[in-house]
């Protein structure tokens, strides 16, 4: 063994008396390799056990109390769509369109780009009441509108972050700093996965070129064991890079290589006892099993043409529509947490693709039909009953038109606005056909039923069968929780 202070430290951090006694010497003998294609769960590690088996970190576990939701599909609209152009109807704001923003709203406030006195700006698109519930929506999401009676629209979301990366981290990990466990990691840590041949937590991004502001920490496992991090899958080509065997390598040869690598890893584990080594062995094995199942799950050419048309999916492309269709296929196969990212909603009005008049329209166009098709499919297959669907960005947009540098801008846009934004939930345990919370007449501040990001997280955990107060992981002397240390609450009004 090469002496290394880092490895020593890993070992010291990893060892607990219980591990030392429990795992003992050589107890890891034939732990993984006896099954080329594992059954959904090994008999010894069945879901009937509560005890966590470190060698099968993704074995399904029942939640602490009866759940409403069994899986989550989270549609993150990165950049943050304008709630004032989509869900939050403000006739008063339209009346004061073009007037100077009142001093009271600016005093002591800090904006990302707005300086001086900006002008108020009403919605750019007409609103109308829709569905049986009569929820207000603009004309930008005509397909989603058909499902409005299944949606619970929250117009009173609040955050305390006004820059993309920290705000995205807050909605995805419960903390604006890098290093905390993401939603999907918490969920797979708490519940394992129903399908042992696919990752429990899959991430898909609409575009191969644009990346998240906050990067991969958005689906990182933070302080949780790294086996619970999100696995990013691609819409075109191999779902996971280098998953397929290289040309001329047979599956049997791959097995031999893996056996050799596992042998070395087991040796390392015996020497150092770091649980991360177990995660690595488990991931090699999962990749081997995924070679068979992932390609099938991600292959949308297996869908009939009318289904592809309904989503607007085109096999071979990298698109939100394709990802939505894959999301449904993954949900059917028991993947626990499916995370989609679609960037481009950051409508400042600086370049043309960030204008409310162009970029927002494009984003709506690229996503609306597929989101609606996903809801239709989930509903007809009975999956919506126990799948929680979440849609939203990381903050809202200002009721004022952005005037970057005090100038009038080429395209029309709004600045970042943490004080109020809209999200919607649908599916498992959610009361459909309702709009929750309200902002003031100008859409500036929440005046009724505010929902903090941590409240949303507490509610999601509740639907999955967890009490956010007790679902924790010890790290750096604190029992870390998704909802953090500030008081959160389960938003009872959203529950069916």
């Amino acid at each position, binding site marked *: 063994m090469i002496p290394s202070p880092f490895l020593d430290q890993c070992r010291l951090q990893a060892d607990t008396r219980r591990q030392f006694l429990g795992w003992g010497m050589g107890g890891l003998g034939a732990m993984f390799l006896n099954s080329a294609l594992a059954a959904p769960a090994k008999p010894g590690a069945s879901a009937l056990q509560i005890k966590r088996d470190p060698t099968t970190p993704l074995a399904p576990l029942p939640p602490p109390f009866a759940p409403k939701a069994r899986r989550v599909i989270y549609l993150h609209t990165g950049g943050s769509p304008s709630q004032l152009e989509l869900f939050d109807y403000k006739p008063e704001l339209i009346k004061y369109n073009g007037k100077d923003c009142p001093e009271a709203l600016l005093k002591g406030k800090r904006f990302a780009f707005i300086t001086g006195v900006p002008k108020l700006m009403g919605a750019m698109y007409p609103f109308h009441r829709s569905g049986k519930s009569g929820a207000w929506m603009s004309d930008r999401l005509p397909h989603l509108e058909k499902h409005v009676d299944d949606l619970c629209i929250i117009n009173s979301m609040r955050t305390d972050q006004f820059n993309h990366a920290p705000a995205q981290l807050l909605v995805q990990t419960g903390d604006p700093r890098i290093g905390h466990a993401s939603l999907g990691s918490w969920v797979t840590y708490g519940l394992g996965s129903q399908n042992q041949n696919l990752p429990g937590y899959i991430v898909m991004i609409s575009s191969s070129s644009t990346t998240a502001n906050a990067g991969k920490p958005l689906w990182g496992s933070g302080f949780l064991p790294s086996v619970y991090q999100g696995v990013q899958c691609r819409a075109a080509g191999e779902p996971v890079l280098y998953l397929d065997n290289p040309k001329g390598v047979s599956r049997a040869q791959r097995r031999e290589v893996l056996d050799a690598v596992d042998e070395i890893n087991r040796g390392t584990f015996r020497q150092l006892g770091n649980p991360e080594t177990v995660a690595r062995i488990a991931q090699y094995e999962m990749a081997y099993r995924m070679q068979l199942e992932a390609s099938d799950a991600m292959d949308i050419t297996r869908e009939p043409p009318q289904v592809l048309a309904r989503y607007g999916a085109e096999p071979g492309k990298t698109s939100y529509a394709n990802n939505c269709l894959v999301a449904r296929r993954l949900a059917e196969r028991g993947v626990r947490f499916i995370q989609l990212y679609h960037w481009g909603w950051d409508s400042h009005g600086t370049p043309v693709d960030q204008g409310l008049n162009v970029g927002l329209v494009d984003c709506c166009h690229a996503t609306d039909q597929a989101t609606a098709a996903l809801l239709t499919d989930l509903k007809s297959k009975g999956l919506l*009953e126990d799948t929680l669907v979440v849609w939203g960005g990381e903050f809202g947009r200002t009721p004022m038109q952005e005037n970057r540098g005090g100038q009038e801008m080429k395209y029309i846009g709004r600045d970042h606005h943490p004080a109020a934004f809209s999200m919607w939930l649908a599916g498992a345990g959610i009361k459909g056909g309702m709009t929750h919370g309200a902002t003031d007449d100008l859409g500036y501040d929440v005046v009724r039923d505010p929902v903090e990001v941590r409240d949303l997280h507490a509610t999601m955990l509740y639907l999955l069968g967890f009490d956010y107060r007790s679902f924790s992981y010890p790290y750096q002397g604190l029992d870390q929780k998704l909802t953090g240390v500030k008081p959160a609450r389960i938003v009872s009004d959203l529950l069916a």
Partner: protein
Amino acid sequence: MSDNTRATGYLPAWLYLALVALVTTLGIAIAMALRPAFANSVLEFLHLQATPQAARNSFYAVRVAPLFENHCISCHGERRQKAALRLDSYAFALRGGRHGTVIRAGDIKHSELMERITLPPSDDRAMPPEGKTPLSPDEIKVIRLWIGAGASPSIKVAAIKGAPRLVRDVAIPNFDLAQAMRQRATLAAEVDRLSRRYPGLLSYQSRNSADMELDASSRGAAFGDADLKAFAPVTSRLVRIDLSGTGITDASASLLAAMPALKALRLANTKTGDNLVAALVPLKSLKSLTETGTGATQASLASLRARGVTIYGDGDAK
């Protein structure tokens, strides 16, 4: 020197004690007159006045107390009493603090609490202090309406009209782990046998219950009526069954019809039909059925729907 002359420089003991008592009583009386809050606590201490108690279903208990709890009691509660003010019970709230009462029944204008919570957050006297979440306009309205209506401990929720409904926290279900474990024990042998024979299909619904779920969807057509029959010994505890894509047929109707606890059944893409649906009608616990891709017709599903069962599927298309 006689005893009499020696005593002249001193008061008799009884008089001294009486004077001390008089001064103390006067002091207390003045304090009581000046500070009604103090008067109340003295009277309550002497059992001359009953400690006011809020009724359980009163407006105070349901609407006001949770607001104090959320916003105030971290500084004005059992652990800390800034300005000697506590807001963690009706009696304490009405008693007030070091500077007098903060709630004057029926008098919104002179209730200091009202004034403090409506000041802009930047004001030094604003409550909660800057940095803490201020009360929302709805929350302030609730307190204003309550004080305006007499700050009563007993007035009912419905008696105060126009109070905005505030969101309340959800109670996490209570459970009796020991009881669940006893219930599990009765079927443990069967469960063990079944999980050996059908690994991974059977699971407890949650860590605190003996209710079980059966998910055979991963087995595909290989899982047939005979396999489902093997689960007969545990039917009393099955609350959710997923048979999507399995090989079961209407032959399983009688078995499924004998599952009193069944809440959700998924039959998508199976060769089941109206006979099975008809058998489900008497199941009182059943809440949802998924029948996409089965032979069930709209007519047979109607009877389930009429019973309040949610149907997911394409029955409409057939």
